[in-house]
């Protein structure tokens, strides 16, 4: 039944795309690829330029030259600096970034899946399901700077300033609303029948949740975890305020790369790429869910 539905929908999609075939004249195709080409260059150039710059000597970094070995002599000087000379700083922030994103996403996933399941399966009276869901979502809307002052004071009182734990707590709030909302969507798509059959066999609600609903929603769980990991990795303001030195993450190290002395472009380029590459790789794995996540579930690809 499920298989059939999936096959049908891909067939339908294929047909849709085929319907879009426009009988283009060769000149039409030239214009088409020209537009796509320009947009692609515009989109990719900064990343490409960072890659080139990261292999340049300081002196070459300011010239508009693109082809290694032909136009300039490539060097590993920048990468060696980042990983060896300044290695302690780089690895500390890498470690913090991974720890913070890993744990905050795990908490987000656990709390989000529980709440999403509850809102998808049960009926709340008085404070209705939609009121609860929308209230949870509204927590995603407020700007981070609206809470940095109280967060700073709370973490100072708890002596958690410059401790990864404070950032984990902050990032959990940031990603939890989205997780609840997406999990609610995923659980609504999982058929109820299997759980009801399990109840008849004497399975408890909690058992049904862990043994039946969660495995069926596994792709959703992975997507929510990875999305939340990406958002936590990229987050800047909370780390800036709560974790300046011991708890600093990659974004802070990137911001620090230029303020030291002079304009060492290769350093900025290397640090930025360390920040960019992991999340871009993750994003390609969940490419189908990224738009869904960024539109808070409004668009399903």
């Amino acid at each position, binding site marked *: 039944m499920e298989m059939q539905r999936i096959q049908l929908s891909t067939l339908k999609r294929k047909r849709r795309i085929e319907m879009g075939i426009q009988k283009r004249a060769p000149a039409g195709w030239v214009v*088409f690829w020209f537009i796509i080409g320009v947009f*692609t260059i515009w989109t990719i150039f900064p*990343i490409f330029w960072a890659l080139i710059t990261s292999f340049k000597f300081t002196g070459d970094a*300011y010239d508009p030259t693109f082809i290694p070995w032909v136009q300039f002599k490539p060097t590993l000087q920048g990468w060696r600096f980042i990983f060896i000379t300044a290695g302690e700083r780089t690895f500390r922030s890498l470690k913090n970034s991974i720890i913070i994103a890993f744990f905050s996403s795990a908490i987000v996933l656990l709390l989000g899946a529980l*709440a999403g399941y509850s809102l998808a399966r049960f009926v709340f009276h008085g404070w209705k399901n939609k009121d609860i869901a929308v209230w949870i979502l509204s927590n995603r809307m407020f700007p981070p700077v609206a809470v940095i002052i*109280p967060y700073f004071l709370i973490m100072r009182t708890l002596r958690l300033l410059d401790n990864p734990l404070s950032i984990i707590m902050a990032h959990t709030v940031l990603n939890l609303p989205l997780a609840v909302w997406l999990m609610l969507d995923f659980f609504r798509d999982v058929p109820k029948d299997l759980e009801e059959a399990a109840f008849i066999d004497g399975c408890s609600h909690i058992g049904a949740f862990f043994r039946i609903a969660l495995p069926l929603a596994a792709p959703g769980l992975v997507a929510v975890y990875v999305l939340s990991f990406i958002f936590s990795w990229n987050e800047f303001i909370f780390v800036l305020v709560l974790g300046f030195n011991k708890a600093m993450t990659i974004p802070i190290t990137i911001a620090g790369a230029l303020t030291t002395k002079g304009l060492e472009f290769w350093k900025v380029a290397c640090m930025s790429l360390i920040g960019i590459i992991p999340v871009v790789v993750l994003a390609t794995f969940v490419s189908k869910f990224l738009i869904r996540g960024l539109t808070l579930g409004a668009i*399903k690809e």
Partner: protein
Amino acid sequence: MVQRTNAIKWFFLLPCLGYLAIMAIFPLGWSLSLSLTKWLGTIMAKPEWTGLTNYRDILFKDLRFWQDLWFTVRFVCLAVLLELGIGLGMAHVLHTKFRGQSFFRVLFLIPMACPPIAVAFLWKMMLHPDIGVINSALELIGLSKVKWTTSVLVAPFTIVMVDVWEWTPFMLLAILAALQALPVEIYEAAAVDGASKFQMFRKITLPLITPIIVTIVLIRIIDAFKLFELVFGITSAGPANATEALSYYVYLTGIKWFDLGKGAAMSWIFLLIVLGISSLLLSRFRSRIAR
């Protein structure tokens, strides 16, 4: 049985609600009470009750606040408009069958997946007025250099440009997904009736995707209002505060200058503005839930 279900549903929901209450409601409440006090963190040990003074000072005496608000509003309008326009156009271009479409769909995800602060510094590097690659290239083809980050006139547009770079692909991919979900049958029927391409767009596509477009535009507006990293990285709010976004001013007041009372009041004004826009979006999401 009913009672057990009742206990279970709250058991599932409460951890999340509790967490949000502790980490979102409590801090916001605290910040509201702080906003009614004067507390210069560097010299005063305790906050001092001053009532609505902070709000009065910000709204009626602080020109910088209004300048920053004005910059932020202009930034949001221009950036979202450009992103929507280019995104809509590109989505239409990509909405055909061609080899490599899925490749481009993944490729265009890159800008929005990057850490915004990395985006800011990459562009700062390329836009450097003296030694940036863009100005070198402009000089090479015989044009004059542009003071991307150091001119009061140009710098605000530079911030808009980088935001457009980062978020146009989002608009493009979201609209493309919406277009590809439209039912083919209507187009077949319209084609049978002899409708032109433009008529199909005006009379079928546009009405059908407008609700989705309104939703994603609202999402973008709310996110664009939080502008911080680009300003922090590219211009540090300069030159002469020409690119100081509201969130940057809140950060300066509350964290850098440690004027906690005024910072809290300003963050509440900011919060109310954003929540006002958010309520439009939330009501759209509310209708998506059945119960």
